[in-house]
């Protein structure tokens, strides 16, 4: 049985059917005029051989203008699977996404360079030295492979995390461009039995990574049936440019038939129009261009319609993921993907705030609720991420899990039917006839059934705000739980066949 996620019965939609059609039509026009600039030769050749008009452009680097006709896009939309399975080491953690079904899976990510440590130093009141208070202090540092293991470990045990995208960039001294991919894949797969999605640092490592997944899944066919890994590629750089290296990676991933998210991340105001109609027409064109290329490489390649639109901050022109418009764009993208019947990869929860706190909670919870209500299948929900996706904090991830539990409860279908109402009428009449007129006795059968939402799990005692301390305790408790590591024999085989994985990641050999 795969993970259930949350079925959104009446998804929130911003766009009318007519507006969806208008965006689609505008995207089709963009794909032929101006089309895309491709810096990747192979993509140009593939698209050209299937009828796209191609013209060589002047410039320092070789590039081509590619005009993709509508019929090519429609053909690709026809061959792209409408149901995508993302497998998992533990098959019970697999995710099944139907493009026409609004269902939410909460997935971590993206990759940050910085890891935020937390400590709780004690402060003493100058006026009254008997009064002490613990205040959290956050210290950023560069992420390591040990951090990635810890993050994967905690996310394994966080109930609401349905899948894992690596959260932190590993920057140890012994990590190089050539061994980064195999180490991040092994560290994540070894500490987490949920679906694992990642980008690739080096195309040269793709076959090693796929081989590792085959060994863990139980062979080539087993990986095909249970794709425990998938990839994310930002092959299109906004506005409308096929990037050379990521496009090359995308083409090779498609050839191997593994699931891949085609992601585009335009910034409204700088790399896309700031108006909603403009960024929507452009991002839709960019994603469809990628999907079209992928289906031409290998028809039937499982793809996710990936969308990471964001609005620019007006003070710095950096990303403003905390802006309200960012959530609007993401909800629109969910609707566009659903109109094509494609599973969606959408974004929420990214905040501008640099540390956990009130700003962080407000920004992330706002977008998490509204985007989840739209029913994206694969919600890349910035678990634990801060500072516009540049910092990962495990404490924040634990806090986010509690927020998602609340959202899960909120999205439940109302249970209002004739038998339920008849039971309630009986209850009302019974209670009104009693001297105390209290319904409390009827709460009890529901108390432990999951029908009543719980108290916020990090509520302090009295007036004290102990949220961070309590979440920290929870984090330590999760880290102390055992990990279902890859078995000894498979681990030995992985280390034997794939060279460059750090010996300290082999838990059977490190002697502790």
């Amino acid at each position, binding site marked *: 049985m795969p993970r259930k996620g949350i079925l959104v019965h009446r998804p929130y939609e911003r766009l009318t059917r007519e507006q969806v059609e208008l965006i689609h039509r505008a995207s089709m026009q963009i794909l032929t005029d101006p089309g895309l600039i491709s810096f990747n030769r192979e993509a140009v050749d593939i698209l050209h051989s299937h009828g796209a008009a191609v013209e060589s452009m002047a410039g320092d680097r070789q590039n081509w203008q590619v005009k993709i006709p509508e019929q090519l896009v429609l053909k690709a939309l026809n061959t792209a699977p409408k149901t995508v399975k993302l497998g998992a080491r533990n098959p019970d953690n697999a995710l099944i996404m139907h493009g026409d079904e609004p269902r939410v899976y909460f997935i971590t990510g993206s990759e940050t360079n910085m890891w935020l440590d937390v400590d709780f130093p004690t402060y003493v009141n100058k006026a009254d030295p008997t009064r002490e208070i613990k205040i959290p202090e956050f210290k950023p540092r560069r992420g390591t492979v040990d951090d990635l293991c810890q993050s994967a470990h905690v996310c394994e045990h966080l109930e609401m995390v349905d899948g894992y995208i690596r959260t932190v960039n590993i920057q140890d001294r012994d990590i190089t461009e050539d061994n980064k991919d195999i180490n991040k894949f092994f560290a994540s797969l070894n500490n987490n039995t949920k679906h694992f999605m990642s980008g690739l640092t080096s195309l040269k490592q793709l076959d090693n990574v796929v081989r590792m997944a085959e060994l863990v899944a139980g062979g080539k066919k087993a990986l095909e049936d249970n794709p425990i890994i998938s990839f994310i590629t930002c092959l299109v750089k906004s506005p409308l440019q096929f990037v050379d290296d990521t496009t090359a990676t995308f083409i090779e991933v498609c050839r191997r038939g593994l699931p891949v998210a085609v992601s585009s991340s335009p910034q409204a105001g700088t790399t896309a129009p700031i108006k909603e109609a403009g960024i929507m027409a452009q991002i839709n064109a960019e994603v469809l261009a990628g999907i079209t290329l992928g289906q031409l490489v290998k028809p039937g390649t499982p793809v996710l319609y990936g969308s990471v639109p964001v609005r620019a901050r007006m003070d710095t022109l950096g990303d403003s993921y905390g802006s309200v418009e960012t959530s609007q764009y993401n909800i629109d993208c969910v609707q566009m993907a659903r109109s094509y019947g494609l599973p969606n990869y959408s974004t929420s929860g990214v905040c501008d705030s640099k540390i956990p706190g009130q700003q962080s909670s407000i920004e992330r919870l706002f977008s998490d609720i509204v985007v989840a209500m739209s029913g994206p299948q694969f919600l890349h929900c910035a678990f634990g991420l801060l500072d516009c996706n540049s910092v990962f904090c495990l404490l924040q991830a634990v806090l986010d899990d509690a927020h998602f539990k609340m959202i899960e409860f909120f999205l439940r279908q109302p249970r209002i039917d004739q038998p339920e109402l008849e039971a309630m009428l009986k209850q009302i009449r019974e209670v009104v006839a009693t001297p105390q007129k*209290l319904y409390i006795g009827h709460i*009890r*059968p529901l108390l432990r059934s999951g029908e009543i939402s719980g108290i916020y799990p990090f509520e302090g005692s009295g007036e004290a705000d102990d949220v961070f301390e309590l979440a920290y305790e929870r984090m330590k408790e999760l880290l102390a739980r055992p990990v279902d590591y890859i078995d000894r024999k498979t681990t030995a085989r992985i280390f034997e066949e794939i060279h460059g994985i750090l010996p300290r990641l082999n838990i059977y050999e490190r002697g502790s």
Partner: protein
Amino acid sequence: MGKDIVATIKENVIQGRKTQEDVGIDESLTGTPGVMELVQQALESSISPHVIITEGLTAGMEVVGEKYSTKEYFIPDMLASAEAVGAAMDLLKPILESSNVETKGKFAIATVKGDIHDIGKNIVAILLKGAGYEVHDLGTDVPTEKVVEFVREEKPGYLGLSALLTTTMTEMGVVIKALEENKLRSSVKVLIGGAAVSEEFAQEIGADVYCVDGFAAVKVLEAFEIAKS
């Protein structure tokens, strides 16, 4: 056999099962005798009311209190157990009275004049009854004269006054003043509670104690009972 029944009474108090129809925490107990049926069986087996109360009812409530303090139990659980104990005490009351066994004190409670809110008052009444007190609920919007009359006639050791509104809480002071004027104030400990009132307000109007909730009321009365003995 006797010990088994008393232990089962205790377990059913913990489960909050007043009668055999009640669903406890452990659903498999549904249909088996609840506290009331078990107390009846215990009396028929000639088990003394003292043993039933101390080793069955009170011992069960102590466990419930512990479970509440560790957040394993919630208020609806506490109330279910207290209601079961209260119903059992109603069964035992005639026997206790006929055998001159001293019971816990008499507690009168009322929502003051002008105020019809009674959730808190009712919870306090259930909890205190479950703790073994003889509870007299005078109702809501109770005129001062009626409270004074009850104190004069029934001589409760404790009087609880409840008010939710800032506009009605002043009536508590009116009741206390009326008790003084009728020379009844020293005969009764006055407890006040409700969303609008506070420790400071209790001192201001001359109440004996402010109770933040029903559990505080149980603790306060226990302390008074200990001091009395």
